[in-house]
Every structure is written in structure tokens, then in C-alpha cells.
């Protein structure tokens, strides 16, 4: 046996996954509660005890970790035009696994600067202008940021002409210059910025967020949890040398506070009479819905879906829905009893959470009638041909109705403008292994992929 331990430091749980990379099997998984007050090391010790109860004593040859503890990697971005470099900055940050606390466009105002001070970003991403394009905005924003105490690093990834001058304006700050996120109009180049974000995360965030003690035990990898999940999904879709992937996919993680959606798909127009508009989106794309979640953000689901819809799905009266949602928001650790009202509510909430989050993630198509007939305009990714849907999150794992809930990610003939998958196999991550497999993939891609193919249980087919 050659054992590897994978750790996910979450904000409420520390999760462990033990893998035998020789036999390509999971040895066990365990999770222990961590509170903000207790040291992150305590959660780890407790989780290891629970894991050892399953596996017996194991000698680990390596140990890798990811973290979303202490609020995760908090980023604030500023760009020029909201739909262009503003959007590019947001896509870059989300794809690097960050939690985007603020997105600004055009010139930062004094009020914005005060808000940014209060947000206490871990990293600020300053962009704007294509190469050789507008410099005024990014220079203005650099000068505005310079008014803040220099206690966060700034990545400058805008118009290259202005990069050095931004750095001078930001004297005293830790400044990193990266290639422009949008070097030419409509061309995204976000990977260099994303690796810089991960590098800073490694170096600074671990110290800042009380993980340094735990870090001593780690072999080398440390990344934001969403970034690990994105890696796992990319591997699962594309495959690696010696093992094929399962093809283009969509993955949804419905959490208590947020819902994350990942798509690994090209998504460009499929018909010649379709014109693509807007920024081309990355092949591996992540979005986060901060107002869609099963507990803290349950109200956001109610606002998006409406009481009548939730009532129809849950079979509960609107009065009961209002009362119950208030209750779960006050007690986010409530878990449903089998056959109880909360189980019905959770079914409806999870269904609508998936529906709304995937609708926001997927692209849209609109029909215009020109004089020569129908033409279509596509914005965002076309996911109609994506053949795999992976779901995870407590509300989907601990229910027998996973397939029914997951079906809400699919194309809806009543809303044909939303380009969601038309027919897909549905897979469930019952043992919460996605982030662990992302970590493992850095050194053992084949093993990580084979374990995922085995563990992500096929859960039916949906049209």
C-alpha cells in the first residue's frame, strides 16, 4: 500500500480523504467540525482520529491540502468597461478559486476606496485597457488604491503600457505585474494571472489564516478549495495520458451559503446562423452565486424562484415555507428527518438552487428577425450538448431524490433561451471527494481520474 492523505480545510469542517494510490481506491473519508474560535489544528486532529477509526493506523507517504477556511481567498477587482476587462478580471479570480468580494469598473471613487478598505481583500486585481489601449482608468485606480494602507498585494494585469507606472504609483505595496487579462479586444489571457493568484495564496494566505502550523505537515500543494475542484472537473472531462475522460461536463456544488457551478466545455455557437457576442468565456469556467444556498442564503432561493414555485415543488403551504425558511436561516445546522417537512423543503430549495445557479452560469440565445429571416445571437456558453452533469453538496448527497433534483440543471423547453444541457448522465459525488481528487491529480492524475470514474456514481439519465 502507498497511502496519500488529502485535506480540505473548510470554514466549518475539516475533511480528510485517504487514498491508496497503488490499489487506486479510497481508504476512507472523515470530517470534523471546526469553529472560528478553535485552532484549525484541532479540527485536523479530530478528523484524523475519526479517519483512523476506519482505516486503522496508516503511514502516509504524502499529504496535500486545499483550504477555504477563514472566508477563503477574498479578492476585489477593478477593470474598465464592465462587460470587457471588468468581466475578464472577475472570470480570472473566480477561476483561480477566489471569493470575489467586490467587482468595480471605470474609475474608482473615494467611496469605493472606503468600501474596499472595509472589505479587507487578500488580493486586489487591477486591470483595464487592452494593450496599447486606455491607460487613464488603470492609472487613476492605481493612484486611488495607493491611498489605502499597503497591507494587501496588488496584481496589475491591464494595459501593459501602464503597468510600470501603476507599480510606481503603488509604492509600498507588494505589486505583481502579469500579462494583460485582455490583451486585445475580445481575447482573454487569464492563466498567468491565475497562477500568480495561487502563488500568492500559497505564500501569504497560509500564514495569514492560521494554517502555518498545519502546513508543516504538508508535502507541497496548497490551493484554494474551488481551484482544486475545478482541476478535478477538468481532469474528469478531458482525461489524461493513459485514461480517457468522460467528456464535456457541468458540475454543481450546492452549499449552505453559496452555489458553485463549473463547466468544462467549449460552448461556442453550433450553428452558422448564430453570431457570438460578448467576451468569449473560458473552457473551464466557474461561477459562484452568493445569494443561492440551502441555509444562510435560503432567502435568495425564495426570491429567485418565488413562493408559488417552491410550494408546488415541496407540497408545503406558503405560510409553512416562510416559517421554515426563517427557521433554517436561524439554525443553519438543521438537518432534515426522513419524511419530515424539512425534507420536502430541502428538495424544493435544492431543485430551485440548481435551476437558478445553472441558468446564470449558462449562456443565452436570442432570436432576431432580420430581413433575410431568423438569425441568432449567442452570449455566454452553449451547454446544450454537454453530456455529463456532476452534483455535490449535502442536500444532494443525503437524499434519495438526487436525480430529480439534478434534473433541474437541464434545458427547459419552456425557457429555450437558456442554453443548458439537453440530455445528460447524472453523477453524484456521494463521498465529497472532488476537491481531494483535484489535489491528487497534480501528482497522480490517472489514479485521481480512475477513482472519480468509480466513485462518482452514475445516477440516471435526464432529458
Amino acid at each position: 500500500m502507498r497511502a496519500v492523505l488529502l485535506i480540505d480545510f473548510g470554514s466549518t469542517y475539516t475533511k480528510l480523504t485517504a487514498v491508496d494510490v497503488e490499489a487506486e481506491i479510497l481508504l476512507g473519508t472523515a470530517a470534523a467540525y471546526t469553529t472560528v474560535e478553535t485552532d484549525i489544528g484541532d479540527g485536523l486532529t479530530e478528523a484524523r482520529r475519526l479517519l483512523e477509526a476506519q482505516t486503522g493506523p496508516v503511514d502516509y507517504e504524502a499529504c496535500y491540502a486545499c483550504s477555504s477556511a477563514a472566508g477563503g481567498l477574498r479578492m476585489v477587482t477593478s477593470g474598465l468597461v464592465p462587460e470587457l476587462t471588468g468581466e475578464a478580471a472577475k472570470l480570472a479570480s473566480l477561476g483561480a478559486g477566489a471569493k470575489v468580494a467586490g467587482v468595480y469598473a471605470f474609475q474608482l471613487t473615494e467611496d469605493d476606496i472606503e468600501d474596499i478598505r472595509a472589505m479587507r481583500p487578500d488580493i486586489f486585481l487591477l486591470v483595464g485597457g487592452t494593450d496599447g489601449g486606455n491607460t487613464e482608468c488603470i492609472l487613476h485606480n492605481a493612484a486611488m488604491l495607493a491611498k489605502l494602507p499597503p497591507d494587501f498585494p496588488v496584481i496589475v494585469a491591464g494595459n501593459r503600457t501602464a503597468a510600470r507606472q501603476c507599480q510606481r504609483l503603488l509604492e509600498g505595496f507588494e505589486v505583481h505585474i502579469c500579462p494583460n487579462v485582455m490583451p486585445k479586444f475580445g481575447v482573454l489571457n487569464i492563466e498567468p494571472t491565475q497562477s500568480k493568484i495561487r502563488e500568492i495564496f500559497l505564500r501569504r494566505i497560509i500564514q495569514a489564516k492560521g494554517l502555518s502550523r498545519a502546513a508543516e505537515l504538508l508535502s507541497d500543494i496548497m490551493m484554494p478549495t474551488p481551484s482544486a475542484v475545478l482541476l478535478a472537473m477538468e481532469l474528469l472531462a478531458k482525461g489524461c495520458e493513459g485514461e480517457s475522460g468522460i467528456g464535456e461536463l457541468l458540475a454543481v456544488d450546492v452549499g449552505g451559503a453559496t452555489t458553485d457551478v463549473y463547466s468544462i466545455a467549449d460552448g461556442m455557437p453550433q450553428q452558422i446562423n448564430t453570431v457570438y457576442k460578448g467576451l468569449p468565456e473560458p473552457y473551464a469556467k466557474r461561477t459562484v452565486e452568493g445569494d443561492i444556498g440551502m441555509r444562510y442564503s435560503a432567502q435568495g432561493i425564495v426570491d429567485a424562484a418565488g413562493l408559488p414555485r417552491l410550494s408546488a415543488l415541496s407540497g408545503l403551504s406558503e405560510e409553512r415555507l416562510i416559517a421554515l425558511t426563517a427557521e433554517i436561516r436561524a439554525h443553519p445546522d438543521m438537518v432534515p428527518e426522513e419524511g419530515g417537512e424539512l425534507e420536502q423543503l430541502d428538495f424544493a430549495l435544492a431543485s430551485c438552487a440548481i435551476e437558478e445557479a445553472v441558468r446564470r452560469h449558462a449562456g443565452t440565445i436570442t432570436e432576431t428577425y432580420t430581413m433575410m429571416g431568423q438569425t441568432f445571437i449567442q452570449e455566454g456558453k452553449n451547454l446544450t450538448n454537454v453530456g455529463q452533469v456532476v452534483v455535490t453538496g449535502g442536500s444532494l448527497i443525503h437524499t434519495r431524490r438526487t436525480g430529480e433534483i439534478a434534473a433541474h440543471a437541464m434545458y427547459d423547453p419552456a425557457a429555450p433561451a437558456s442554453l443548458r444541457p439537453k440530455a445528460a448522465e447524472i453523477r453524484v459525488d456521494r463521498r465529497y471527494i472532488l476537491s481531494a481528487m483535484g489535489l491528487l491529480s497534480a501528482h497522480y492524475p490517472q489514479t485521481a481520474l480512475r477513482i472519480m470514474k468509480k466513485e462518482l456514481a452514475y445516477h440516471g439519465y435526464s432529458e
Partner: protein
Amino acid sequence: MEQREKKVIVIGVIGADVHAVGNKILYHAFTEAGFEVVNLGVMVSQEEYIAAAIESDADAIVVSSLYGQGELDCRGLREKCDEAGLKGIPLLVGGNIVIGKQRFEDVEPRFKAMGFDRAFPPGTTPETTIEALRELLHMDGGDA
């Protein structure tokens, strides 16, 4: 700061117009002539021209319209440019900018009144267009 070597122009075919051939020819002709060209292709909305011009700090916007709806599609572009901080950016329009055969002496003033610096009749060659751009952007001879 580095001086930029080339003049930047944003081009595209406005509105619901799908005539793609002239756009491609203009893209190559302008690039050849030494301009940095941001090509938005066909079916371009006013907002797209403006967003691209802001990011690229463009020196001019060149609008094409071939299908006859140019007058409707171009209305308000100047005002939106002003609003977006692109004050005084040169706007050029050409192609088949109005419906049917109309006297160009009648057409031109209407586009000028809309805030276009120059409007061109059907059949204007790329050479003439480049000439006009050089003049508007005060480029004296040689390369762009």
C-alpha cells in the same frame, strides 16, 4: 510611458446587418495600411463599438452599413459616445447607408447632422477610406 506606434480604429457592421465580405476586406486593408484594427464583425450594437473604443483607447470608429437600415441604426451613436467619455472621437460611416438609390448630396447632411464626421457613398474604395482616415487623424503621409 511608451508612445504607441499605431493608430487604433474600431470597425464593424452595425445593427442586424450580416454582410460580412466588405468588413473582412476593410479589416485587411486597414491593417495593411498600418492601423491597429479592432474588428467587431457583423451585427454590432452601438454599445459594442463604444465598449471596444474605450478599452482600446481608439482613435476613430468606422461604421459599415450595407442593408439599408443605416439611418435608423446610426441614430444616437454620437450622443452615446459623448456620454461614455469618448468626446470628439471621429465617426465614419459607409457602405450602402440608406435604402435604395438616393442622391448622396441629400444623404450626407443627414448623417453629418447625426454627428458623423464623414459619410461615404456606395462603392467607396478602401483606398479612399484610408485617405480619409489619415486626414481626419492628422497623419501626414507615410505609415499610420
